[in-house]
């Protein structure tokens, strides 16, 4: 329906409603990010020394490769664990689906700090897992589950799993169950019907979930900082170190710019490829 011409002035006036938010963003969002960029290039005159240092010093390169390694591993594990849950949600009754959704949403909305703290209590040397294993005679003495890669992976997968489940479920719920039934009636085994029909149709959800989880994992700070050890220093924890311990603002800014560029590139590439709404909407509707 075409709005009558008298409608036009109304319409343009409604567009003005974005102005408060836009003004706020320019001052409190864009301006600080531009300060970040300028801190990475000036000291006080223009310089590339921070970037040169970043490339030259193995410790910084390790932080970058740690970040990518941790994020990739988290993404793969979250996909493997999230797919079955999403599949069950998409193929079960409405009642059970609501129950499953609630059971995923409650941890999703529980503070990350609380969940990370919970893992410290559970995985510590005197934690529940270690005490149980020692009492059962499985172990002679506690194994180290914290302040290493195991702790970081457990904690991060726990926090990011819902971000994988919701986009997966979104794609799967759009698959017409009749398609799978047809494949079965034509003689496909359940496994074959799943592999040849359901799985390919769910791939957009797989892509959206993986991008979202990887994106969030790259910038993750709380969990690596609390559950990781010296071997799990990431870009995010290094930024904190630069600001709060070493007082090296220029270098902190440079690490921030690197993080921003990596995340921005992934975001732009995939928002074109599969629609921004799917990435952000997944986080938005159920939240963060």
């Amino acid at each position: 329906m075409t709005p009558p011409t008298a409608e036009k002035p109304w319409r343009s006036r409604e567009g003005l409603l974005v102005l408060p938010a836009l003004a706020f963003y320019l001052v409190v969002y864009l301006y600080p990010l531009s300060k970040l960029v300028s801190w990475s290039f000036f000291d006080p005159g223009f310089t590339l020394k921070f970037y040169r240092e970043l490339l030259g010093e193995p410790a910084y390169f390790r932080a970058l490769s740690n970040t990518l390694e941790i994020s990739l591993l988290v993404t793969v594990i979250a996909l493997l664990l999230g797919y079955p849950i999403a599949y069950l949600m998409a193929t079960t009754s409405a009642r059970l689906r609501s129950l499953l959704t609630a059971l995923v949403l409650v941890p999703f909305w529980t503070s990350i700090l609380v969940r990370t703290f919970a893992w410290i209590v559970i995985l510590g040397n005197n934690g529940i897992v270690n005490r149980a294993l020692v009492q059962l005679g499985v172990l002679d003495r506690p194994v180290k589950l914290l302040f290493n890669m195991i702790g970081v992976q457990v904690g991060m997968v726990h926090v990011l799993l819902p971000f994988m489940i919701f986009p997966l479920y979104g794609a799967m719920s759009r698959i017409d169950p009749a398609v799978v039934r047809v494949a079965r009636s034509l003689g496909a085994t359940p496994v074959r019907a799943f592999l040849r029909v359901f799985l390919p149709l769910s791939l957009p959800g797989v892509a959206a979930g993986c991008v979202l989880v990887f994106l969030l994992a790259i910038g993750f700070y709380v969990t690596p900082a609390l559950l990781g050890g010296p071997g799990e220093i990431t870009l995010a924890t290094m930024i904190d170190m630069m600001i709060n311990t070493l007082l090296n603002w220029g270098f902190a800014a440079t690490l921030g710019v690197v993080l921003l560029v990596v995340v921005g590139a992934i975001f732009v590439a995939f928002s074109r490829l599969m629609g921004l709404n799917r990435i952000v909407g997944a986080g938005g509707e159920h939240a963060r």
Partner: protein
Amino acid sequence: MTAERASGGRAALWILCAVLIVFLIAPILVIVVTSFNDSPYLEFPPRRLSLRWYGTFFTSAHWYEPALLSLRVALVTMVSATLLGTAAALGIVRGQFPGKRSLELFLISPMVVPIVVLALGFYFLFSGYHLLGTPVALYLGHTTLATPLVIVLVLSALRVSDPSLELAARSLGANYWWALWHATIPAIRPAILSGAAFAFLMSFDEVVIAIFVGGPDATTLPKRMWETIRFEIDPTLTAISSLLTLLAVVVLVGVVLAERGRAADRAS
């Protein structure tokens, strides 16, 4: 035979998912159960039950003062993010101007910028205006984080809402703002309320920006928890964690009820 195998596969799927759900829920349950411990050693399961750690939280200024600051920051964030976000979403959906799509992308982009990068930007910004360590820094930082959330929720509600009521009001001569207030806003009220509730929760739980811009003078509850976790395992943390979990559940139930209300409205 295939049907049998299918139901066998189904049972395996259920068992696998039950294990995964336990993985998701167990940490929270463990903390809640541990919080009722009488012992300072985080026994699980507790040998003797008590509410002493809840008592510590509510009676020690070391804990309740940060909680009060968090409450203040979360309330301010909720109001400002809801106003900015709702207005922006209305402008995007109802307005007509060039670059709408890019503007929408820009307005929800803080959601994907790593919080630590935002926090660093705020640190640079606020240190220039002597705002580090003030609640104002927290209001502004948290509003940046929460506004995109409100925008996304209100946008999706607006896109499925029926504009005919608003058009009817206007064709009957209603003033634009009257139509907005009496026709459009009521239709998307559940989304606005959800956005407000989530904005509150996000701010109340937020720790990274609080660490970077809070300084020693503006310590929110999550910042105090963070400092404590790094230093020692204080059982009070289990009580606070349980209360934060309860808060999340309350917000979620509220949002679900608001959405139900909307569904009921549609049906009637």
